[in-house]
């Protein structure tokens, strides 16, 4: 469903992502693992067509992001970590509806999806209130609904649990697992090995823009004789540092 082919991004002199290739199948969660500044966000921004690759490309559901960026965007849903980025003066429903409209949904479709999402995420009580005064967890749910309201086949998560408390993190993690159940292809970026271990089928480790590992989590563990994965990660990254 997602095929990343030799993706490279240079910012002036700095090569943020250097010839990265990997694949993600439907119903699969791939963890994109790396330290801060390793190139995870840049990779996701390229896949979502926000940034133009310097070279290489990616295919989403068979669509080349260089040739058909609009169609690619239609297939993709993104959830960012950190600030959820909602319009405080709009209600939860208006926030979600705005993105549904911009996603090209008809009004009936949008309203139907919003009702379903409100039910699924248990937001009915506050869906018509302005989000300005929402708690972090409530905002997180709105952001989730917004990311998925257009029924994307592919979900990209960019460190979605960063700065979240345990219960809000759980909301996000449940949502990711639910996406998997629905057969979506998922890339989940994180710098936490533990989270990746918990959720992901496969892991892609990048360091200083380069791919250093691409394989199943169990294989990684087996390769390093059942060592703690956090340590494995450090060793992989450390090897390259030398």
């Amino acid at each position, binding site marked *: 469903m997602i095929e990343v082919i030799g993706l490279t991004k240079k*910012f002036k002199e700095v090569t943020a992502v250097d010839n990265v290739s990997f694949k993600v199948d439907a119903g699969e969660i791939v963890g994109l693992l790396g330290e801060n500044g390793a190139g995870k966000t840049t990779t996701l*921004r390229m896949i*979502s*067509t*926000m*940034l*133009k690759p310097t070279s290489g490309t990616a295919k989403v559901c068979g669509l080349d992001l260089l040739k058909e960026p*609009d169609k690619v*965007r*239609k297939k*993709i849903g*993104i959830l*960012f970590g*950190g*600030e*959820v*980025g*909602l*319009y*405080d*003066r*709009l209600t939860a429903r*208006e926030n979600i509806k*705005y*993105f549904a*409209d*911009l*996603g*090209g949904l008809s009004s009936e479709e949008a309203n139907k999806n919003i009702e379903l999402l409100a039910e699924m995420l248990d937001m009915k009580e506050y869906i018509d209130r*302005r989000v300005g005064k929402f708690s972090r967890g409530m905002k997180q749910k709105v952001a989730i609904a*917004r*990311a998925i309201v257009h029924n994307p086949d592919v979900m990209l998560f960019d460190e979605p649990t960063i700065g979240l408390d345990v219960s809000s993190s759980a909301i996000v993690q449940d949502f990711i697992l639910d996406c998997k159940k629905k057969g979506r292809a998922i890339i989940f970026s994180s710098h936490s090995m533990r989270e990746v271990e918990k959720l992901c089928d496969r892991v892609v480790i990048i360091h200083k823009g380069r791919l250093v590992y691409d394989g199943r989590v169990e294989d990684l563990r087996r390769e390093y004789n059942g060592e703690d994965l956090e340590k494995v990660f450090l060793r992989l990254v450390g090897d390259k540092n030398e």
Partner: protein
Amino acid sequence: MSNLWGIVFKKELKDLFRDRKTVIMSVVLPLVLFPLLFGLIGKGVKSTTEKVTKEVKIAYVGGESSFKKFLSNVPNIKLIETKDYQEEVRKGSVYLAVVVEEDFDKKLAQDKMSDIKIIYDSESTNSQTALDVVEDIINKYKDEIVKRRLEARGIDVSILNPIDIKNEPIDKEKANQGALILTMLLPLYLIIYAITGPMAAAVDLGAGEKERGTLEPLLTTQASRMQLLFGKLLAISVMGIIGTTSSLTGLYIAFKYSMDFMGDVGLNISIGSLILIGITAIILNMIFAAVELAISIYARSFKEAQTYLSPVTIIGMIVAYGTYMMDVKSASTIMFNIPLANVSLIIKEFIIGIYNPVHIAITFAWALVYIIAAILFARYMFSKEEVVFRT
């Protein structure tokens, strides 16, 4: 898909109108500011003048004289006898003191010059007002003496006034002071409002979107950057136009109801002129909306955007004030090629009812160039990765 900018436009307007700060700053404040300001100033001036002229308290210093008699016959003058007149004036218990020399009447009788000294407080508005009143009285008294002296010699008073000046405007129907004031003020205000009107919205929809972290999700939707840009630009322009309208309405109310001490300025502008001025104002707003949005997109935060935008205000104001006194009747066609100055001149022409097709064509053609340039500038900013992800 083509109406995506319309969705952006509608959402942005809704969002802006829910922001109390923006509504107060760009709609309510301009509407009430001038009426309030002019009203208060007008009231203040009026009440001070009324209070002083109702009973002008003056200290008279010197012996009995014909002038004292003349003065005490003026109904609103109240003479106060005092020794320490300087202290009284300083304290404000009398507005001023009139010091008449001892042999005042004797000198007058001998056809000589007599002195009257007025001691007043240059820091007190009451004293200044009283000074005007008393000077008027003295001048009247002076005229009387001159008349008496001339009559004693058998000469007619009119000898002193060999020329009678009569001002006659070339076009009596058009002769309104209001139009002249308006040709100076309206272009200035329209330019300034076009700069300040869209500003709050531009900051909110550009840098604000970045600061809140809503720009990135927006970029992953079906809307292209140009569609986002157009939706936002239109919303900002509308806010600017609303701002200009409410500012002008405020100004109109202020002139109409609060400036009664200035007298009737009598305006007559044709509907055609009003429409043309309106179109010019809309164009001005769109130009500045695009420039401000471009700058705002470049900024990382609200604060940064406000810092970058303040020079725009200053540059605009300098140009606007530069054209303030420009006389439209002597302006050459070349002048209509100067940015902003041409807009200012064309508004002046519209006010006094000149519709010069060449001037209109040149100015509007340039306006179109500015709008396109400003939009291209905004588009450039919006499409540059370094700018959009400059956080």
